[in-house]
């Protein structure tokens, strides 16, 4: 096997988990298979692994129950937030803002916190529900973003205003991949805060609100109970990896 062909096989093998990658590449070296057969074998294993992953409900939930609708709705919230901010900024500083504008400041702040909370919770849920299909979740959240960016026609606002939710969402995804489950206390505080902040905007269609807050309550449902200890968590994570 030439170094170039071997390199191709190694690149394909990166799609496998670390231990499995080592084993498979070792097997190919030992049996002296051709580069072509090695590449086909590695890609075959990658495809089989992905198919097995998609037999579980987790990737479906992460990609199409969280990432796709979440990014769509959070973009809407980002635009609302930007428009309100623009209106407030028109009057510059707090002390010169007329009473009606001051009345808007508090709702704007609560909307900002709501956006951060919902984005972080959605990101965390996407990251923790299905880590190994994270790339599909990322693609399914990017598709509505690209669609909306292409069609965004509000002249007074930058297109980047659509993506205000991205920073807390990415932060949430990173945390979700690392931590898997947060503690019950912080999870409850987050879910209750998000729900309370959502109440003033609770209007039809209510599915909009529900889609935004349910990731926070999902974190409560799957949170680490301190009494259950690490062993339970480890066994649950083992089940998760078996399901994958």
């Amino acid at each position, binding site marked *: 096997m030439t170094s170039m062909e071997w390199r191709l096989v190694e690149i394909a093998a990166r799609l496998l988990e670390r231990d499995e990658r080592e084993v498979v590449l070792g*097997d190919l070296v030992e049996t002296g298979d051709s580069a072509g057969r090695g590449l086909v074998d590695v890609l075959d*294993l990658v495809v089989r692994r992905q198919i097995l992953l998609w037999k579980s409900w987790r990737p479906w939930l992460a990609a199409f129950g969280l990432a796709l609708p979440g990014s769509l709705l959070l973009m809407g919230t980002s635009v609302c937030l930007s428009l309100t901010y623009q209106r407030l900024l028109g009057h510059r500083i707090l002390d010169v803002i007329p009473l009606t504008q001051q009345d808007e400041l508090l709702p704007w702040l609560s909307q900002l916190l709501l956006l951060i909370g919902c984005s972080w919770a959605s990101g965390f849920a996407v990251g923790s529900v299905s880590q190994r299909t994270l790339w599909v979740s990322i693609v399914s959240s990017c598709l509505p973003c690209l669609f909306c960016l292409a069609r965004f026609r509000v002249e007074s606002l930058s297109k980047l205003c659509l993506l205000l939710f991205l920073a807390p969402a990415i932060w949430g995804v990173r945390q979700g991949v690392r931590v898997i489950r947060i503690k019950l206390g912080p999870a409850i505080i987050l879910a209750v805060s998000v729900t309370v902040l959502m109440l003033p905007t609770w209007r039809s269609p209510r599915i909009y609100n529900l889609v935004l807050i349910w990731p926070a309550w999902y974190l409560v449902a799957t949170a680490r109970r301190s009494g259950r200890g690490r062993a339970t968590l480890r066994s649950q994570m083992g089940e998760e990896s078996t399901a994958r």
Partner: protein
Amino acid sequence: MLGEFEYLLITAAAGLGDKAYGAVIREEIEATTGRRCSIGALYTTIDRLETKNLLKTWMSDATPQRGGRAKRMVRVTPKGVQAAKDFYDAVTRVSRGASWVVNRPRSAS
């Protein structure tokens, strides 16, 4: 009840004993059946059998002949031995009277 490939894999691993790992099991299956055995089929089947507690696997130390990479060692569990025996018995029973069994030329002893 095991599948055909699962039976082949367990039987090959049992025959190899303590030396059973991915590459040699694959070679053994290819040599005895004359059919190609893909790495994908091998390792996904090993995972499935391990989930059913029919096999146990663990990572060995890295060896120079594999470019310093580890092996995935395989051992058949007592439950796996029983499952293979059940499969073999079922195949033997269902094959009684089959033309390819009745008319099989006897090997010279």
